[in-house]
Structures are given as structure tokens and as C-alpha cells.
């Protein structure tokens, strides 16, 4: 059986010359259905972190787009991502969020699968099936799994490039966050909650510092007054020494920490330049990893389940961990003072093309047009403008490329030019 492409429609959703965006991409049911195939059915997707499944037998229940997936650590220490759908009648094999087990038994009829998804036992194999069931062909549907710095990604697409090629030069930046500390990270969480938004709005917002002084003024001002935090004003935005880099639809905000003297072990790990000068901040990894280790999981055109993890350095002191946890819970996440103020904005953006007249009004993503390009030192497409809509354009053009592609053969990968210094150069 082959499920063929649902549509051969060629989308033109963003005009790169004018920044005009078709608002129907958020609310249209047909487009959403096609995204499930062409974006979530083929892209690499973040599904978890190694610290969630440290021991053999550990599992963590996750999602690839709408698909329920079991992430396991098998007896050999390998990682497996398998569709949580029984090959018999399609019931789920586990209904728990995480745990440790030797096998997964479907509670409908008792078909039992191993940690690698192999079908191990079927009740009545002889008496009911006359020994005619080929169990070797009835394992759980497996996804390809690869990791980067403890982050676990998976894809359904056999023709997808390696994760290394998929991340491309974005890794040069992401290393400065995910590989800086030698002990790696522990993932706490996730918080889970449902937002009445289209999943794309939170991704494109991830690099949008233009909204911060307005949307988040109350949280920023209060944090500045009470905790002495940076006050995110427009003036701060215009003058902060920072860049944005764009690679393969991924985005990284980069703070230039020139003059900073990183500890020797960080210099050893990242090389002098990156350790001292480059600090990756808010990043989005195409398609739905938002602002660090957070997922925007599609639940329909106008509904998204958010998963908010907190990555805490494994070698942090208890006090450092406490501060990081409290920061995460109080600023972002379901009860976050910053995030709470985003949701209604994103919802309204998501709904803007759902009405007859509204659908005729394009959204305007033209800020900073023409101000991004190659850079001598920083890989990828780079802009010195901390406030611009380059990421929105880069993200939606990448999205359009996925939506118009027949297969991975039609999806471009930017050439990798970054030079990696330090002991963490390997993927």
C-alpha cells in the first residue's frame, strides 16, 4: 500500500520582494492536512532529550506532528522512535507519559512489542492464527533517529538527509548553547498546554524582537524593577550588539559577547572565537522547535499543544538549578509572565485569514528587506539588524519549499562553510 501525495498544488504564500503573506495558511483545513504530510511527514523533528531516557528500558511518550510516538532506550543503549499504534487494530500501546519497561503490550488484544518495536508475542498465534502470522513483518512503524548534543530528532522520511546536513551551519551557533558546558544538560518537564493558535505563529514569533517592548512591557518592566533584569525597550532593541543568522529555515539570535573571557574549558570545547564572542539565544529549528527546547505540536489548524522543557546543566549546583527552574516557570511556559501575553496575539494572527474579507488582506512581513546576506565570519545568511522580519520570511519561504516539494530531492540544503574549532567540532 502506498499513500500518495494528497495534492500537487504549488503554493505561493509569500512574496519575497514585498513580504506580503497569505493569511489563509494558518486557518485553512486543506493546507493544514497537507502540512502533516509535507512538513511533519518528512522533516527532522525534535522529539526529546537523552536525559529523558537515560537507562535501558526507559521510554518517553512524544509526538511527531500529530503522530503519537514512543521514544525508547533499548537493551543495547540504542534509541528507537516508534509509532504508538498497534499493527493489529491501531490501539495505542502505552498511555503513560514515561516509564521503564521490558515490552509494550496492547491492552486491546495483548499483542506485545519489544523496546525496538519488534512484535514479540501474539495471543493465540497457533490456535487463532494457524501460525500464519509473519511476526517479523509486523513490528511497529519506526522512524529514523539521530541526536545532536543530547537533543533527539526523528524523521519518517527514508530519503531525508542526515541530521547534520539538515541542521547545517546552524550547528555552529547552536553549539555555543548546547555544547558549551561539558556535562551536558538534563531536561526537566515538559509543561503541556493547549493554545488556540496555529503552530506556525509561535515559530515565526521566535525571532520577533519587535513585539517584545509592546507585548511584554508589563513582564519586562516588573522583572527589571523587582529582579534588576534587562528592560526590553525599543531603544535596547536598536542598540544591542546582536545578530540573527538563518540556515535551512532555522533561526538563531546571536548575542555578540566581545570582550567576554570564557572559562578555559569552554574555549577548549568551542574554540576561542565562539567561546568568547558568540552566545546563541532564542532559536527556532525548522519546523516546530521554538525558543530552546520547546515544541509547538500541531493539533488542528487553530490548535497547538505546547511542550515547554527546561534544560538545566547537568553539573549545575542545586541553587543554580533552582534559579533556572523558577526562571523558566515564571517567564515562559503556561503560567509564564512573558508567554501569557503572546497567546491572544498569535490567536488573532491565526484567525485573521479565516473570514471572507480578512482572507483578502495580506499580512506584511517587509521589515528590513535586503539587509541580510553572507558574512565574513558568521556562517549562513546573517543580518546585523536585531529587529527585522528576515526570519519570518526565511521560515515561510522554507515552509513553502517543503509544501511544494515532491520529495526531499526538491528541498535545498545550504552549503556548509562553517569552520569548527574546539573539541566539540564533531556532530
Amino acid at each position, binding site marked *: 500500500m502506498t499513500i500518495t501525495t494528497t495534492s500537487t498544488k504549488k503554493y505561493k504564500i509569500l512574496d519575497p520582494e514585498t513580504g506580503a503573506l497569505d493569511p489563509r495558511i494558518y486557518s485553512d483545513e486543506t493546507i493544514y492536512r497537507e502540512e502533516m504530510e509535507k512538513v511533519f511527514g518528512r522533516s527532522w523533528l525534535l522529539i526529546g532529550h537523552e536525559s529523558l531516557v537515560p537507562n535501558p528500558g526507559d521510554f518517553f511518550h512524544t509526538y511527531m506532528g500529530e503522530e503519537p510516538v514512543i521514544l525508547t532506550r533499548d537493551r543495547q543503549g540504542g534509541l528507537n522512535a516508534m509509532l504508538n499504534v498497534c499493527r493489529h487494530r491501531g490501539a495505542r500501546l502505552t*498511555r*503513560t*507519559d*514515561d*516509564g521503564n519497561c521490558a515490552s509494550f503490550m496492547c491492552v486491546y488484544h495483548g499483542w506485545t512489542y519489544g523496546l525496538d518495536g519488534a512484535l514479540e508475542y501474539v495471543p493465540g498465534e497457533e490456535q487463532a492464527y494457524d501460525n500464519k502470522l509473519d511476526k517479523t513483518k509486523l513490528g511497529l512503524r519506526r522512524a529514523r533517529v539521530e541526536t545532536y548534543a543530547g537533543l533527539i530528532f526523528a524523521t519518517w522520511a527514508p530519503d531525508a538527509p542526515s541530521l547534520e546536513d539538515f541542521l547545517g551551519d546552524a550547528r555552529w551557533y547552536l553549539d555555543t548553547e548546547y555544547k558549551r558546558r561539558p556535562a551536558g544538560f538534563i531536561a*526537566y*518537564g*515538559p*509543561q*503541556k*498546554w*493547549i*493554545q*488556540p493558535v496555529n503552530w506556525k505563529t509561535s515559530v515565526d514569533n521566535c525571532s520577533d524582537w519587535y513585539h517584545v517592548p509592546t*507585548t511584554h*512591557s*508589563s*513582564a519586562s*518592566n*516588573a*522583572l527589571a*524593577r*523587582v*529582579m534588576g533584569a534587562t528592560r526590553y525597550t525599543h531603544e535596547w532593541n536598536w542598540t544591542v550588539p546582536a545578530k540573527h543568522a538563518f540556515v535551512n529555515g532555522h533561526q538563531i539570535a546571536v548575542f555578540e559577547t566581545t570582550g567576554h573571557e570564557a572559562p578555559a574549558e569552554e574555549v577548549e570545547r568551542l574554540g576561542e572565537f565562539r567561546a568568547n564572542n558568540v552566545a546563541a539565544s532564542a532559536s527556532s529549528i525548522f519546523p516546530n522547535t521554538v525558543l530552546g527546547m520547546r515544541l509547538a505540536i500541531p493539533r488542528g489548524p487553530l490548535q497547538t*499543544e505546547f511542550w*515547554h*522543557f*527546561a534544560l538545566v546543566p547537568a553539573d549545575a549546583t*542545586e541553587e543554580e*538549578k*533552582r534559579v533556572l*527552574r*523558577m526562571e*523558566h*516557570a*515564571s517567564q515562559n*511556559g*503556561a*503560567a*509564564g*509572565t512573558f*508567554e*501569557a*501575553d503572546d*497567546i*491572544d*496575539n498569535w*490567536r488573532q494572527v491565526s484567525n485573521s485569514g479565516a473570514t471572507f474579507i480578512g482572507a483578502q488582506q495580506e499580512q506584511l512581513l517587509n521589515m528590513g528587506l535586503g539587509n541580510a546576506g553572507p558574512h565574513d565570519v558568521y556562517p549562513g545568511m546573517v543580518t546585523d539588524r536585531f529587529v527585522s522580519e528576515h526570519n519570518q520570511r526565511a521560515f515561510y519561504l522554507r515552509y513553502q519549499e517543503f509544501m511544494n516539494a515532491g520529495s526531499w530531492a526538491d528541498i535545498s540544503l545550504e552549503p556548509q562553510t562553517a569552520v569548527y574549532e574546539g573539541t566539540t567540532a564533531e556532530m
Partner: protein
Amino acid sequence: MTLFSEEQRESVQTAFLDPQSLWNDLNHFYIREAWLLDDRRFREWFALFTEDMMYFMPRRKNVPVREAHREIPPIGTDLPYYEDDRKLMEVRLQRLESGMGWAEEPPSRTRHLVGNLVIETVGEDEVVAKTGFICYRSQLEVDQSIYAGSRTDVLRREDSEWRIAHRTIVLDANVILDKNISIFF
């Protein structure tokens, strides 16, 4: 049904001559607190907490019955929904007072029904009290959500008043079905 086990009754009686008076006292405290929240008198509500307060709302996981001990990750082991000390709660209040805390502009209409009070332990100047609650939230035009859960409080006697030193809120939910948690419990 009695409100105290025999053992508890004894300990309550040691600290307070009349356990029923203590129960009445706390019940009155919780009713007043609920009205402060629903009437949006957040500063007065905040004043009910001690200086060293902790306002904690853990996650609640789906785990098998036999692994029930893993259902609610304890403080310090996980990312909760709330882990606020006095300073972080002050940030939340200043935000609401700014006129620019958009999640609550215009503000939610809430109704907290708090009940099922039991007093779990009684110390010299502290009691541990547990309540159940249903909270209805309505906002903007048609948004509405219902939260149900329990609260376990360490209440401390300060200047002849009860103060909340440590509150643990456990929601009866796994994935939260609300756009944001910009209200209090």
C-alpha cells in the same frame, strides 16, 4: 463523617482547645481568600502569604497505578507550572497592575469554589490544611475554562492571623486546556 481522625483530633485539641473552632477559623480564612481572588483584590490576597512563601504547582503525569509515586514530581526534581517565591509573585502582581498585562486585559472573570477542608497536621504555630477547589474562568468574549484541583497549605500563625507559608496546587489535569494560566488558585 468526622473532620478529624482520632489522632488528629488529639493533636488539634492539644494546640487549640476546640478543634471545631480551628476548622471554622480556617474555613473562614479560605472563604475570604476566594472572595479576594474573585473580586480581583490581588494585593490583599498577596498579603495573606508569609515573607518566605512558596507558591508551587507541579506537573501531573500519566503513570500506571502501581507507579503512583511518580505522578506528581516533587519540588526540586522537575519543571513545575509555578515555583514562585515572594519576589516572583511580586513580578506577577506588578504586571497585573501595569495596565499592560495583556493576558489579563480585559481581566478574567473567575469564581473560586473552595471546600472540603481537612486539617492534616497541627504543629505549634503551623497547620497543614488541604482543600479542594473548582475554579471557573471566563475571559474576553467566549473563552472559558474550568480548573479543578487540590491545595495543600502550610499555614502559619503570625500576629494572630493565618498566613500561607507554602502552597502546593495540584490540578486534576495532564495537558492544561487553557490558553495560559494568568490567574491564581
